[in-house]
């Protein structure tokens, strides 16, 4: 193995990430290889199909961490694979020759399968690329018919067949997927021509400033951000420019005509330097703006993985990182650098040696007023160092420098210490995620821990720091359970970078949940605790993921899983048991899901899953428990569609709350259903009421109304409510009668009450009819008398009234006559009746007609104290003075006795 020195050549440097002790059975060149960027895993599949004769042995698909630890290994039993690639969710996409795509998890668990369409199936897949857009991961396919089919997002599969390239006879010499303005394109090279395929058209394009004499393009590479494009021609000439091909950035002639194995961009974001790494069998060349290239010799088969800020290169024995040296590091480590950071580092070293030179260096920086800058440089440079001892010495220098600054905000220093601890922990061989500081910042801590998508971030943080916190180079260890076979949490869409076998691939926004995906729950929790992330954002989520993983352990009983989960999670805020239960259901463990739901404190959360699991009745009772009527209603509608009508009604019957809710709805929206509901329940009382309501709300014609009433009466009989039945029958009679009255007498009778009907008759002078009606409907005497009295007084038919009063003894007495006459202001008539009022009400009657004096006499005669005071209260002013005196005298007399 060739040791790689930290080769510091003008702008690029390379250092070793891991020495790989994966026990590769095959040569890399014999395998399909895919490595996910952001320090992602590596998948290998020996490619027996490439050989002329298909080997009889089935190949093995192996997945390794970036440090070469085996994560999964499984026998490939499906068809020939053309291409491998990692999706944004760190799922392995295996594109088969027939256009089928098999999706595996990080641990080799089969996820799902989808097809790229019939056209692909017929013409077979010639070549495939997995690429990344801001929406997710896409697959582009070149078919045997030299047509392209692509899907920009495999989690929301929409196939697009690209237009034909005119005159294309054979396969293009090279091609790539581009992503511009949120749309995926294909760029392909045929001989000396380049074509850009978009959804609707195929257009020929020419790179600006391309050197003449090109007869074929051998390789092309798009940068990580889709901004830049590099073309390698058969003349050994490399064109580098913008992805639109409109602007040339630089060019280089390497004089090697052999087609390179791989070509990738190597540049860091926002850097002015452009560099492309080209790999042949035994040679690696970094070319850029400079007239000279940097060359390395490759001892072994190597693979390039483009990263955000560099290139990872792995081979059988090593895993290295090649990148442009960051400005801060360059300033400090440049030979004989006089940058403030370099001086500070020097000063600190001297200080440790207890040399007075420390002071000299320090003074030098201070005189230039660059101490703040020096500290910042050291902090920033520490971030870009891979080796903890280098990080430490830089941070020590920063810490030393800070002592001489009055006001230096401490957070940048503290944060860098924290970040580095986290980075060192995950870079550990056992974990194997060799993230650089820039990648880590782009990825964010949330994504590192457990999120699947991340906010579009851009900003770099200003580097400055204070506070002296001891820096430890490695965070606590962590056991990393690596088991094969069983699944890991499903993930939603996000974006994640892959690298593809031969060609460069260009991804965009990164994302997935690194540690959780690798089932490194303890480490994730330790990091959360170390960074003091709020529980809800940190530990709770990790625990929830752990629980989701736990439910997939099929060999453990439902009981035990549920208990284990509850023990660990308890009432941790932010943990949703229903989510975990949903996962359990997803694994086909319905019983476990129900058990887990029991721990869910919010019954509202339980309902949707229960419905999904077809436990609608349980869902109904949970919804009712929640008290959320909307939820109940949702379940009801679900039940209504799921069950037949009879069963639905039966279910309702046992749930009064749901029943009344549904009734309310039916009352306004589905009257017929309401009737059926009552029928089903044999609720004749309500059924009767229903028809009564119909008789005056829904029906117009009198026959219809009577019929409705008849139905109602029958229902009431069934309900043993004779009273209502009789009343309804009376009403039917009355309706018919009123109709007849309207026909015969004219006027309006329909819908009057019995009382009002009789009154109307009397007012119309139809006394006979009125009496007949009163007899027919057995109107009590008292009511009839009141009724007649009021009606006649209203008519002011005093004569008739008097006749009536004498027709027989009044059942209501005569006081009402007095009252009613007085109401009509007819004192004269009133007085007539006052005399006929019985003795106990005489006083009242006399007072009503205003005869206070006589009232007094009667009261005195009755010797009734209450009556006396009543009269007295009516004595007003001078007119009744004598009467008042009289009463007072009588009172006095009564008292004497």
């Amino acid at each position, binding site marked *: 193995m060739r040791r790689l020195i930290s080769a510091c050549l003008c702008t690029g440097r390379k250092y070793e990430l891991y020495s790989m002790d994966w026990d590769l059975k095959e040569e890399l060149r014999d395998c399909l290889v895919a490595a996910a960027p952001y320090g992602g895993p590596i998948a290998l599949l020996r490619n027996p199909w490439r050989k002329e004769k298909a080997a009889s042995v089935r190949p093995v698909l192996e997945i390794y961490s970036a440090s070469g630890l085996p994560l999964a290994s499984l026998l490939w039993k499906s068809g020939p694979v053309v291409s491998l690639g990692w999706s944004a969710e760190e799922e392995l996409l295996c594109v088969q020759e027939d256009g089928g795509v098999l999706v595996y998890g990080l641990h080799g668990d089969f996820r799902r399968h989808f097809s790229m369409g019939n056209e692909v199936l017929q013409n077979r897949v010639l070549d495939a690329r997995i690429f990344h857009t801001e929406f997710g991961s896409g697959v582009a396919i070149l078919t045997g018919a030299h047509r392209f089919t692509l899907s920009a997002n495999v989690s929301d599969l929409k196939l697009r067949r690209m237009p034909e390239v005119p005159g294309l006879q054979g396969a293009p010499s090279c091609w790539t997927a581009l992503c511009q303005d949120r749309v995926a394109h294909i760029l392909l090279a045929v001989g000396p021509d380049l074509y850009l395929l978009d959804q609707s058209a195929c257009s020929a394009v020419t790179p600006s400033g391309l050197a003449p004499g090109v007869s074929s393009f051998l390789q092309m590479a798009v940068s990580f951000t889709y901004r830049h494009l590099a073309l390698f021609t058969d003349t050994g000439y490399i064109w580098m420019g913008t992805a639109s091909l409109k602007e040339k950035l630089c060019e280089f002639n390497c004089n090697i005509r052999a087609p390179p194995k791989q070509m990738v961009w190597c540049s860091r974001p926002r850097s002015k330097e452009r560099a492309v790494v080209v790999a042949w069998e035994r040679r690696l060349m970094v070319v850029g703006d400079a007239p000279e290239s940097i060359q390395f010799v490759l001892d072994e088969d190597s693979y390039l993985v483009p990263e955000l800020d560099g290139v990872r290169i792995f081979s059988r024995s090593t895993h290295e990182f090649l990148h442009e040296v960051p400005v801060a590091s360059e300033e400090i480590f440049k030979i004989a650098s006089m940058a403030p950071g370099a001086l500070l580092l020097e000063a600190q070293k001297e200080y440790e040696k207890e040399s007075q030179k420390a002071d000299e260096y320090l003074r030098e920086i201070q005189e230039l007023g660059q101490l703040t800058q020096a500290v910042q440089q050291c902090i920033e440079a520490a971030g870009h160092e891979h080796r903890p001892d280098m990080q430490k010495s830089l941070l020590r220098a920063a810490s030393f420098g800070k002592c001489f600054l009055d006001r230096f905000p401490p957070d940048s220093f503290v944060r860098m210490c924290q970040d580095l601890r986290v980075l060192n922990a995950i870079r550990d061989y056992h974990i194997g995620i060799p993230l650089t500081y820039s990648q880590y910042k782009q990825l964010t801590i949330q994504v590192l821990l457990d999120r699947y998508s991340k906010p579009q971030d851009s900003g770099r943080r200003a580097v400055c720091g204070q506070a002296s916190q001891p820096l430890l180079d490695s965070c606590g260890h962590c056991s990393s359970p690596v088991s094969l076979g069983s699944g890991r949490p499903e993930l939603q869409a996000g974006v994640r970078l892959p690298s593809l076998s031969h060609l460069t691939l260009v991804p965009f926004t990164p994302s997935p949940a690194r540690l959780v995906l690798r089932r490194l729950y303890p480490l994730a929790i330790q990091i959360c605790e170390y960074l003091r992330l709020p529980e809800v954002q940190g530990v709770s989520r990790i625990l929830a993921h752990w629980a989701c993983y736990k439910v997939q352990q099929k060999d453990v009983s439902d009981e035990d899983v549920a208990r284990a989960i509850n023990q660990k999670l308890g009432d941790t*805020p932010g943990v949703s048991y229903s989510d975990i239960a949903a996962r359990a259901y997803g694994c086909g463990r319905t019983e476990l899901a129900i058990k887990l739901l029991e721990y869910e*404190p*919010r019954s509202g959360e339980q309902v949707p899953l229960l419905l999904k699991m077809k436990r609608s009745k349980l869902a109904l009772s949970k919804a009712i428990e*929640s*008290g*959320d*009527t*909307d*939820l109940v*209603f*949702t379940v009801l*509608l679900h039940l209504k569609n799921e069950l037949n009508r009879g069963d639905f009604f039966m279910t309702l019957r046992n749930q*009064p*709350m749901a029943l*009344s*809710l549904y*009734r*309310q*709805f039916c009352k*306004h*929206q589905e009257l017929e259903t309401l009737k059926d509901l009552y029928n089903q329940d044999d609720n004749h*009382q309500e059924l009767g*009421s229903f028809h*009564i*309501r119909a008789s*005056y*709300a829904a029906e117009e014609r009198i026959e219809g109304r009577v019929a409705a009433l008849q139905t109602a009466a029958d229902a009431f009989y069934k309900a043993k409510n004779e*009273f*209502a039945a009789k*009343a*309804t029958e*009376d*009403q039917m009679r*009355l309706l018919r009668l009123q109709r007849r009255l309207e026909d015969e007498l004219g006027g309006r009778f329909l*819908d*009057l*009450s*019995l*009382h*009002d009907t009789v009154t109307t008759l009397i007012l119309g002078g139809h006394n006979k009819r009125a009496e007949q009606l009163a007899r027919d*409907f057995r*109107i*009590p005497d*008292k*009511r009839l008398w*009141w*009724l007649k009295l*009021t009606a006649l007084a209203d008519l002011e038919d005093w004569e008739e009234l008097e006749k009536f009063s004498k027709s027989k003894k009044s059942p*209501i007495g005569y006081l009402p006559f007095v009252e009613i006459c007085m109401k009509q202001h007819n004192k004269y008539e009133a007085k007539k009746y006052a005399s006929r009022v019985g003795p106990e009400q005489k006083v*009242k009657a006399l007072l009503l007609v205003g005869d206070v004096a006589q009232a007094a006499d009667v009261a005195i005669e009755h010797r009734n104290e209450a009556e006396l005071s009543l009269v007295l209260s009516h004595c007003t002013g001078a007119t009744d003075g004598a009467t008042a005196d009289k009463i007072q005298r009588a009172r006095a007399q009564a008292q004497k006795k």
Partner: protein
Amino acid sequence: MAFPHRLDAPELPDFSMLKRLARDQLIYLLEQLPGKKDLFIEADLMSPLDRIANVSILKQHEVDKLYKVENKPAVSSSEQLCFLVRPRIKNMRYVASLVNADKLAGRTRKYKVIFSPQKFHACEMVLEEEGVYGDVSCDEWAFSLLPLDVDLLSMELPEFFRDYFLEGDQRWINTVAQALHLLSTLYGPFPNCYGIGRCAKMSYELWRTLEEEEDGETKGRRPEIGHIFLLDRDVDFVTALCSQVVYEGLVDDTFRIKCGSVDFGPEVTSSDRSLKVLLNAEDKVFNEIRNEHFSNVFGFLSQKARNLQAQYDRRRGMDIKQMKNFVSQELKGLKQEHRLLSVHIGACESIMKKKTKQDFQELIKTEHALLEGFNIRESTSYIEEHIDRQVSPIESLRLMCLLSITENGLIPKDYRSLKTQYLQSYGPEHLLTFSNLRRAGLLTEQAPGDTLTAVESKVSKLVTDKAAGKITDAFSSLAKRSNFRAISKKLNLIPRVDGEYDLKVPRDMAYVFSGAYVPLSCRVIEQVLERRSWQGLDEVLRLLNCSVTKEDKASSESLRLILVVFLGGCTFSEISALRFLGREKGYRFIFLTTAVTNSARLMEAMSEVKA
């Protein structure tokens, strides 16, 4: 009159914040639909809206024209229509018909429905069924608490009563829980909770869940409101059914106070125009008489008038400077007071005209007889005559219900004959009204109740207390019996009369019913506050059914601010009674009600009227 509060009585919290919150949210919602728009408002929401945001505020936020949601096609020509409605199915049908009419006419506009106080799934369902779900955007205006007065918050949901107590519909309970949650977030946690009734229990539990879900927000805050009482209206129908005789209650019974204001007709204003008057603590005259027994009001007003006159009269003999002072400082206040005084005097006269007639005296006498439970026969025939004479359908119903509840159901003979009479007087559709009243437990037949009691007592001897309680629950929910007589005895609701009850200087809360009856709801609160728990009230609780308690004594001893929540509405008499209790004992009560109600509103809610 108008007793001052004790010095140690706490200050009321400032509820105007609730108005601001509601206004800001409404404005936010209106701005979600930028540009000119026409606003359709449901009639029921107009008055509450008026208290929150007036027309000029609406106009500021680009509301062009205002329409009432009615059952007729809209004439609006705006390109954007916004509907502000209660979540009712009929409103959805209205919106749907508008949208569909536009579709037929080939017109596309923007539609937005704002539900207040919340959206119901059923409403969206209807929109979907009518095929307009995609055309309409929905939003919620969580405006559930309207401060009608310094101590009175109303949810303005009169339909709560019918929906819950008649139809058994629990939709609004969530709204209540949300409202309580809002109050506790704004004004700190409530250490002590007491509740009576099923609805109270459910609201309480839902509310607790809400609080738990949003843990930490109220934690650690110092409580302001020490106690909260949740009362179901069906726990005490009696009080709500009685004729009111305190001034505010009388005004409500006579003129109907709507959303804190009343329309006084020409008979009050003694002009040809009617006058809308806002009735709350800001009306100085009203504030002094609102809680008074009516018999005192007139005397007070005339005294006030004389004082006022005297103050006016001071003008005479003033020199120029004094006069200037008087005009600039006092005159405006005096004029204002004068105006108010004349309004209330007018109202009093109008009430007197209606109420001092013999009929009213008789009515009150009958009510008192019913409350005390004597002369039942006489009362029954009074009611019968009342019906026969078609005095008032609502009044008759009220009396029948009062009779039924106080007597634990009517005897079968009366039950039939009164109903027959009623149907003859007011029409057969009231068969449905009676069926409603029976379901709500307002008007029932006596017979089955007795047998139940027998079974019940046997059962309770056999099994443990707790189980017995459950069984009692089950039984009483079957027959919703009222047990009024027993409760009345236990709680001493009918004060013993020795001599004349001095209505001028009341000695207990009975003054709100002329000294004849202490409102049950208020008495329960009084007792719990006195005993600082339910202790000793076990029997009453058993009779009242279903209760909740959460006590946290330590932190609340000194808290004398009490929130009383009436589920299904409260009457002004109850408010007056509790205000009186507060003054006596140094508490301050805050009232939260689903709506202010009275006997007529309760009866109307139960009545079936021809559409």
